[in-house]
């Protein structure tokens, strides 16, 4: 009988894992559709976040943008107004009841404003957050905090690499860090302060555009103390990593005793001679202008809160420059027909530092905000 000669492929390897072209294509499609996209989508739908209590994202979740997307979705369901900003709005030195959104809600007697602020969220990062993780706020009323403090120097503006001259700073590893690096444009030539390696930057884009990696990062941040999975397993030999993962997350800030009463002078802070950048040279200001345009495009009703900045902490020269900057910011917002509130100077004892008020200071800000159109009930 004629034996059919078997076509031989090259000697392969020391394992049997060898796919045919057809199998490879089917496997790749399965991994891309099911693992990278479908499974994270199902997870997102099944995951519940506990938002009972004050609507204020816990500080430990400040870099968990997957969770933030959930947070925005919940906020838009239950609050007609969204408040975006950094630690000034989040309430760095005050407890849950003394943040700006909480005080507005108390004054209005109902849940109106959702606190969507995150500590350290500068304008460049806010833009990234809105573009990638907060599309749910489309058509909503939005109050955006603009903190000019990010324009006080080229370093905070991210347009210049911080040079550490101080030996002690170097020893203590106190190099100025960029807040929310995963939200900023990764390959922009303008943001010279951000000089991570190619792999790091590509990793951020991977997380931004492939839901599986965003989910992984969310799991790592929420259940594994921000540790690398491998390191965690070695450090916790007795624990089953799967039992650490849950589909319900407590997302609210629960620290009720966080009220700080020391003003900036008592804390020993001294006067600063910040140069303040001209708007045309500032990346943060450029990003803020883009935020306004983006929100307009998304059909949002907008109100901008400018400041506060502690004028007593600035030298006369620096204060003069800051006042000029304030005027330019207001002029631009006026030209764009955008409602704004320029936070008035408060008594020196009401500032905790250069930009954060203490609880009494927040009362004064809320009084100003309650007069805005955005918070007035519709007739």
């Amino acid at each position, binding site marked *: 009988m004629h034996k059919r000669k078997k076509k031989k492929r090259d000697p392969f390897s020391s*394992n*049997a*894992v060898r796919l045919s072209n057809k199998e490879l294509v089917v496997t790749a499609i399965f991994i891309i559709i099911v693992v990278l996209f479908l499974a994270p989508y199902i997870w997102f739908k099944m995951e519940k976040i506990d938002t009972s209590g004050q609507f204020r994202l816990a500080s430990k979740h400040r870099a968990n943008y997957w969770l933030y997307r959930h947070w925005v979705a919940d906020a838009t369901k239950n609050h007609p107004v969204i408040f975006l900003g950094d630690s000034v709005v989040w309430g760095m030195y005050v407890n849950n009841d003394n943040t700006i959104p909480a005080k507005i809600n108390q004054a209005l007697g109902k849940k109106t404003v959702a606190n969507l602020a995150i500590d350290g969220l500068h304008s460049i990062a806010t833009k990234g957050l809105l573009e990638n993780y907060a599309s749910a706020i489309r058509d909503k009323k939005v109050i955006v905090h603009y903190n000019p403090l990010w324009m006080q120097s080229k370093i905070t503006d991210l347009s210049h690499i911080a040079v550490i001259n101080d030996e002690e700073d170097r020893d203590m590893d106190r190099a100025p860090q960029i807040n929310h690096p995963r939200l900023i444009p990764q390959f922009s030539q303008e943001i010279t302060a951000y000089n991570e390696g190619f792999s790091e930057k590509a990793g951020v884009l991977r997380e931004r555009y492939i839901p599986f990696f965003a989910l992984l990062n969310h799991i790592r941040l929420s259940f594994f103390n921000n540790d690398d999975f491998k390191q965690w397993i070695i450090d916790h030999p007795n624990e089953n990593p799967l039992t650490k993962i849950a589909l319900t997350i407590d997302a609210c800030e629960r620290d009720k005793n966080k009220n700080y009463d020391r003003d900036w002078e008592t804390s020993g802070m001294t006067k600063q001679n910040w140069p303040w950048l001209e708007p045309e040279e500032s990346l943060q200001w450029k990003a803020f202008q883009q935020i306004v345009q983006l929100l307009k495009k998304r059909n949002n009703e907008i109100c901008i809160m400018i400041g506060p900045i502690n004028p007593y902490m600035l030298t006369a020269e620096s204060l003069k420059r800051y006042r000029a900057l304030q005027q330019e910011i207001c002029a631009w917002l006026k030209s764009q027909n955008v409602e704004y509130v320029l936070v008035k100077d408060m008594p020196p004892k009401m500032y905790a530092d250069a930009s954060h008020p203490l609880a009494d200071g927040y009362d004064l800000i809320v009084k100003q905000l309650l007069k805005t159109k955005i918070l007035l009930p519709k007739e």
Partner: protein
Amino acid sequence: MLFHTYEFIVFFAIVMAVYLPLRRTNWWQLWLLIASYFFYGWWNPLFLILIFYSTALNYFVGLKLGTSRFRKSWLTFCLINNLFLLGFFKYAGFFTDNVRALFQILNIPLDIPDPNILLPVGISFFTFQAMSYSIDVFRGEVKIEKNFVRFAAFVALFPQLVAGPIERAKALLPQMRHKPLIRWHDLSDGISLFMIGLFKKIVMADFLAIYVEKIYNSPENFGALPLVFATYAFAWQIYCDFSGYTDMARGIAKIMGIRLMLNFNNPYTAVDLGDFWRRWHISLSSWFKDYVYIPLGGNRGFKYSVYRNIFLTMLISGFWHGAAWTFVVWGALNGIGRLATMKIDRSDFYRNKIPKILKQLLVFNFICVTWVFFRAETVTKSLLILKRIFTGATSSIETTFLSTFQNVPAVMFLLILAMWVYQLVFNSKSKGLLETRFMRIASIVTTTILILIFATSANKQFIYFQF
């Protein structure tokens, strides 16, 4: 540039975009050379001078070996140059350290300055590859390569440049003489190989490294059992690290239509030490066999000269791995082990009466003892580790047998077990089970998911890059 980085993905995409249309022309070798030099220069552009020198030297000597009357002199000149290059860059620091220590013992007040020479990545690999060409030309086993670009591309071929496999001229150069033929299944084979290599590196090797480092960094703080577990973990770490690199290198080459040799063949399933060395770093073992062991006399001559040849080959192999006494001891131990077991391996009793699994465990455990020297920073530390293991030392962390086990991460244990069982099945009559469509696809899906989970931005270097 490491294979498991985004930089490499971009690099490879660009290389292939040009390589695919060029492969049908005569320009493909030049493009391959440019790509390989770019790949190597990524570490340090100065290294390119070295690889170019090594290439030019062996190319020129190759030509001379075809025409000159003083063939032996040319070969000697070539070997001395190659070995000097390797010796200078790799062993100068080791040499001065030892001479300094000797002067101290002899109370000679002479201080030799530290040479502070940067070790070029992969120098041991490309020097050996280039050298093998000259020797083979001298022996008349390989045709002289007259095309410099082709020869340079053979020495610098980027998939295997920095950590092997060390390809022979007779296997690789003929492939470079023809336009590469890339078939569809080369693509799927290459990707399958690359994925398995990636799994070995990212999921296994880099993970095990964390546990091994923890224990080996302060062995005095750990008892016998954690040290044993860490040594077992290191055995799998180095296997996965090195064979993972090779799998990726072979996969990349395959996608480009170039076939590289098998470098690891499930070495921990070996049933005797000879078998182990036929399965571990096959390209290096065969290099030493052809260019050191056989020229020394090989199996010919008296029993004792055979023993000497085996021992010397293993010793030199140890020294090739690194400029430190730990590697010398590692090589010597393997030589002694090989000599001590040669007779036993061939006996009927060992061959037929001892269960295969027991033989595999015996070989694995002996190899693990030698790995202690390979991994520990110094010979003193190696001896301390072995002393603690063999005297059953305890520590304040692990007070009972149970608490010791509880400190071994279960996930790590399961991953090693899974890989070991896979290899045992692969080498058994049940291999067919692994070749079913379901098993192959399930393996790729599982390994891919684990790669995706374990991949972090912090990519570790491959262990063998330092050699």
